[in-house]
C-alpha cells in the first residue's frame, strides 16, 4: 500500500526542519567539539599516563599522577598539594564572602539614586573590569609594593615587618580577587534590588522588626536568586584564577591554577598537571551543580544564569 501524500509531505517537512537545525547549529557545535571537547578529553586521558623521561606522557596506564597529586612523592607523603587545594578553596570562600558584603550595600545604594544616574553608576562599577587583568594586577603591584604610602601605613600600624611590602602576600591575592570579581556580584544584586517589593520591608518595620531582622525576613529572600547568580559568577572563576596569585602572591600563595600551569611550563610533568586539571574541572562542575540546585530550591528558576 502506498503512503498517502499527506504523510509524505509531513515527513518531508520534518526532514527539512532537521536539516535546517543541523545546517545552522552544526558549524558552531562542531567547532566547540573539535577545539574544546576533544582537547579536554585528550588532557583528561593524559592524567592516566606515565610521566616519560623527557616530561612527555607515555604508556603504561597508571594512577601515578593522582598519587602524586595526593602528595605521595619519592620522599613519602607531603602536605604541599593539599595545602594548595585548601588555599584555593579558602581564598575563593573569603573573597566571595567579602564581595557579597561589599556588593549588597552598593547595589542597594544604586537603587536609591536618581533613575538617570543609575546607568552611569553601574558603568563606573563595571569599567575597571574591562581593562586587561594583567594591567589590573600590575596596578596593585605598584600600589602595594614596599615603600609606597599604603605599605608604610601598614608598617607603622605594625601589620607587616619593616621594609616589606603588602605585596607579595596572600592578602594581596584576596584583594586582587575582590577587585576582579566585584562587578559580577553588583550587577545581579542590583537587578534583584530594582525589583524589590518594598511594601514587605515596610510591613516588617511596622511590626517593630530591627533593621537586621527586617533585612533577613524581607530583603534577603527576595534578593537570593540574584545573590546565587552572583556567587556562580564570582566563585567559579575565582577558584580557577591564574594571573592574580601568580603576580600578587609571589610564589608562596599559589592556587590550583598555578599548580596546573607550573607542571606544563617549568615542571614538565604533563600527567601530573593533567590530573590537577581534572580535579579543577570536577570541582568547578560540582560547584555549579550545587549552586544550581540551591537556586532551584530557593525558587530562583531562570534567574540563576548558568
Amino acid at each position, binding site marked *: 500500500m502506498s503512503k498517502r501524500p499527506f504523510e509524505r509531505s509531513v515527513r518531508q517537512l520534518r526532514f527539512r*526542519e532537521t536539516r535546517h*537545525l543541523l*545546517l*545552522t*547549529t552544526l*558549524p*558552531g557545535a562542531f*567547532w*566547540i567539539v573539535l*577545539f*574544546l*571537547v*576533544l*582537547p*579536554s578529553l*585528550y*588532557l583528561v586521558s593524559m592524567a592516566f599516563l606515565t610521566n616519560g623521561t623527557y616530561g612527555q606522557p607515555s604508556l603504561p596506564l597508571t594512577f601515578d599522577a593522582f598519587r602524586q597529586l595526593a602528595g605521595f612523592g619519592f620522599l613519602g607523603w607531603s602536605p604541599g598539594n593539599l595545602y594548595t587545594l585548601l588555599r584555593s578553596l579558602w581564598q575563593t570562600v573569603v573573597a566571595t564572602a567579602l564581595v557579597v558584603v561589599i556588593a549588597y*550595600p552598593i547595589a542597594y*545604594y544604586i537603587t536609591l539614586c536618581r533613575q538617570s544616574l*543609575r*546607568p552611569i*553608576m*553601574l*558603568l563606573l*562599577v563595571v*569599567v*575597571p573590569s*574591562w*581593562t*586587561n587583568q*594583567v*594591567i589590573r594586577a*600590575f*596596578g596593585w*603591584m*605598584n*600600589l602595594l*609594593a614596599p*615603600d*609606597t604610602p599604603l605599605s608604610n601605613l601598614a608598617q607603622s600600624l605594625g601589620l607587616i615587618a619593616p621594609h616589606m611590602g603588602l605585596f607579595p602576600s596572600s592578602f594581596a591575592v584576596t584583594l586582587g580577587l575582590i577587585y576582579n570579581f*566585584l562587578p559580577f556580584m553588583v*550587577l545581579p544584586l*542590583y537587578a534583584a534590588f530594582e525589583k524589590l517589593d*518594598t511594601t514587605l*520591608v*515596610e510591613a516588617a518595620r511596622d511590626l517593630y522588626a530591627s533593621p537586621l531582622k527586617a533585612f533577613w525576613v524581607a530583603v534577603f529572600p527576595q534578593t537570593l536568586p540574584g545573590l546565587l547568580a552572583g556567587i556562580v559568577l564570582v566563585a*567559579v572563576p575565582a*577558584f*580557577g584564577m*591564574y594571573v592574580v596569585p601568580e603576580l600578587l602572591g609571589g610564589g608562596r600563595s599559589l592556587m590550583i*591554577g598555578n599548580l596546573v*600551569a607550573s607542571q*606544563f611550563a617549568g615542571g614538565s610533568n604533563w600527567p601530573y*598537571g*593533567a590530573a590537577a*586539571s581534572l580535579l*579543577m*574541572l570536577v570541582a*568547578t562542575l560540582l560547584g555549579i551543580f550545587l549552586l544550581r540546585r540551591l537556586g532551584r530550591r530557593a525558587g530562583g528558576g531562570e534567574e540563576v544564569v*548558568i
Partner: protein
Amino acid sequence: MTSPSLKRSLACLWWVLMAFLYLPLAVVVLFSFNSINSSALFESFSLRWYERLWGNEQIMASLGHSLVLAIISSVTAVVIGTLMGYGLYRHRARRLGWLIVLIYLPIVMPDIVFGISNMTFFVRISSLTGWLSPGLGTMVLSHVTFQIPFVALIVYSRFVGLDATLFDAAKDLYASPFDRARHFIVPSIKPALVSAFFLSFTLSIDDFVISFFTAGPESSTLPIYIWGAIRKGVTPEINAIASLMIAAVAVAAVISLAFTRSKGSDASR
C-alpha cells in the same frame, strides 16, 4: 523608608569603593608620566616613556598581533555564532539539551584548563601532522571557541525579543531563504550583531590566559608582552602602554554610555 543617616553612610561607602576601583589604574597612568624609572617616587612630568613606545618594535608587533587576532576571531565567531543563535531560536520547541550544554561549556571552563588543553592538543596535532603549530592561527581557533557562545546567546535573545509572527510574514513575502535572510533577518538583528562583534572583540583583547598558552614564540599579544616584562622586572614602558589601554577602555565606556543614553535601555551588557 531609608533614613538620611543610612543614605549618607552608603554614599560614603560608594566613594570608598570608587577609590578602591580606580586607584590602581590611576597609579599606572600617573607613573607613565614619571621622568624617572620608578613606581614609588614621582619626580617630574615627562613623556619620555611614550616616546620610547614608538621605537619599541616588540610592543608595536604585539599590538598588531592583538588587533589582527581580535578582528579575525570576532568576524569568524559572529558568522558561526549568529547561525547558531538563529538555529537555537527556530528550533527552540525541540529539546536541545545537548546543544545548551555544549554552548555553556566554553563559558564555565576554567581559563587555565581551557588554555592548557588547547596547547597540549595543538602540540600533539602538529607533531603528528605538521599542521596547527602554535602561533596566531591556533590563537584564532581558541578565541573563536570562547566567543561563539556569547554571540549565539546575544543573537538568540534578540530573536526572542522579536514578534514571532514577523517570521511568518517574511515567509509569505520572500520566497527564497536567502532573500529572507538578506531583507528581514539580518536587518532586524543588526543591533545584536554589532554588540556581539564588540563583545567578541573585547573578550579577545582582554584575554590573557588562553592566549598565553596557545601562542607561539612569534605571536605574543600585548597582554603577553606586558606579562613577560613584569616577570622580568624590566618595565619602564609598561606604564605607558598600559595607560594607553586604559584610555581605550575609557573611550569605549563613554561610547557605550552615549549608546545606552540614546536608546534609553539599561546599561548592563
